[in-house]
């Protein structure tokens, strides 16, 4: 897949590519921070038949929807394939003992045998975090293991 980049003097930058199914889509990045999602007309490939204006927040949201959750989705698909393997998404709430503390303090793998494979924070995925990764309120921890061990992790993260 080749992404083409074109300068738009006085406006900003445009990136575009053709999908495998033959549709052309692009993003116009305005200097003001505005992003336009552009979909080209199949009959007239130079014309944007649909232009969707997005502000910073909307562009971030779209980006998250298209990108980050796919990792969680892939994990879910994985444990469906392997019998006896469960992945859980556990929230770190304020008031739980590990909010603001490094992950190593919980000694999850040693105590339960389950693994923390990712932490999702504000839509961003931190894959395979190390023991010094510090949890904060609102993080979602993705754990993989047997049904018993993952349940034990849930207990540790809420009660210590």
């Amino acid at each position: 897949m080749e992404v083409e980049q074109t300068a738009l003097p006085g406006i900003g930058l445009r990136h575009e590519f053709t999908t495998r199914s033959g549709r052309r889509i692009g993003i116009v990045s305005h200097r003001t921070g505005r992003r336009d999602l552009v979909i080209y007309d199949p009959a007239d490939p130079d014309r944007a038949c649909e232009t969707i204006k997005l502000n910073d927040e909307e562009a971030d949201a779209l980006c998250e929807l298209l990108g980050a959750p796919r990792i969680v989705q892939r994990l879910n698909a994985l444990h469906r394939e392997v019998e006896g393997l469960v992945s859980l998404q556990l929230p770190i709430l304020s008031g739980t003992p590990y909010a603001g503390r490094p992950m190593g303090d919980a000694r999850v793998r040693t105590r339960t045998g389950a693994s923390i494979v990712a932490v999702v924070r504000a839509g961003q995925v931190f894959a395979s975090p190390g023991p010094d990764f510090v949890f904060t309120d609102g993080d979602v921890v993705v754990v993989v293991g047997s049904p018993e061990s993952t349940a034990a992790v849930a207990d540790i993260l809420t009660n210590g």
Partner: protein
Amino acid sequence: MHSTAILFLEFGAVLLGLGILGALAMRVGISPIPLYLVAGLAFGQGGILPLATSEEFISVGAELGVILLLLTLGLEYNADELVTSLKGNARAGVVDLVLNAAPGAVAALLLGWGPVAAVAMAGVTYATSSGITAKVLSDLGWIGNRETPVVLSLLVFEDLTMAVYLPILTAMLAGVSFVGGAVTVGIALATVSVVLLLALRYGRLIEAFISSPNSEVLLLKLVGLALLVAGVAQQLQVSAAVGAFLVGIAVSGELAEDAQALLTPLRDLFAAVFFVFFGLQTDPTKIGPVAGLAALLALVSMVTKLLTGAYAARRAGIAKAGRARAGIALIPRGEFNIVIAGLAVAAGVHPDLGPLAAAYVLILAAFGPLAARLVQPLITAIAKRT
């Protein structure tokens, strides 16, 4: 009544009138520039409601309008874009210049107005209105289109050409002897080159000087510098507008964005005053006799802009429908053409030049965006069928 009171009454009435006209133009979906010109015609000599005392005030406001128009235009570009655009589009830019300057120059020569008027009229028919075209592109959702970079780089090329052309025109309009004229043109071009070089090389220093976290300080420094440079440029027979344009180019990046946000309302106010002022200077009764000529000139230069757009887009590998759109997007004329005509009128080149230019810009400023709107579905339908 006290004269200040009359001044406020008149100026207030003019601005309020423009506001109402602007609202009307927005509702219909056309550029307000032609309506501002018409308003100016109505307020001027021979119009329906001649102004008594505020003409001088409006004339200063109009000068400020031109300076602010070009300052904000310069802010839109940075030096890198200008250089890349020049490198990549020189050929299409030259085709644009030759094809579209010719109708005006030829018309002036055929009318026997002389070489200076020919140079002025060449400028009137050459430059596309970057303001109106940019608005058409964004209103019709053409910014994402693949022919749009071609259109935009032609606009950049035209604006740069203007930076060289305006000083030459100003020197010619000063109407000195041939040797004196050559010297003035030389000084003018040297000034532009020096300032452009300074802007490109030491833009960062200028930015560091202007930059301020306080918007009030930033505004004062930027407008102050632009007016100072404009004044010096005027003194050296380079047009004041070009001086402001070069200051705008020197400022780029985040600072340029902040400055633009601060300047836009000021510019809108004074640019509207400028269009009214040009209308004021034009006697509406003189438009009638040149209307046919203006329509013919408009038709010819519509065709030449279509050819220019098609040529430039074809070079960029754009299909037929896109080529047609590129041509149509280039049709609108507006602020620059009136700036040029205004300079020529002030120098007293030919009494018919003002009315001709006014009628010409009226037609193309109104018809250009309308044509784009009307033709869009047609082009799409044809592209779908084949």
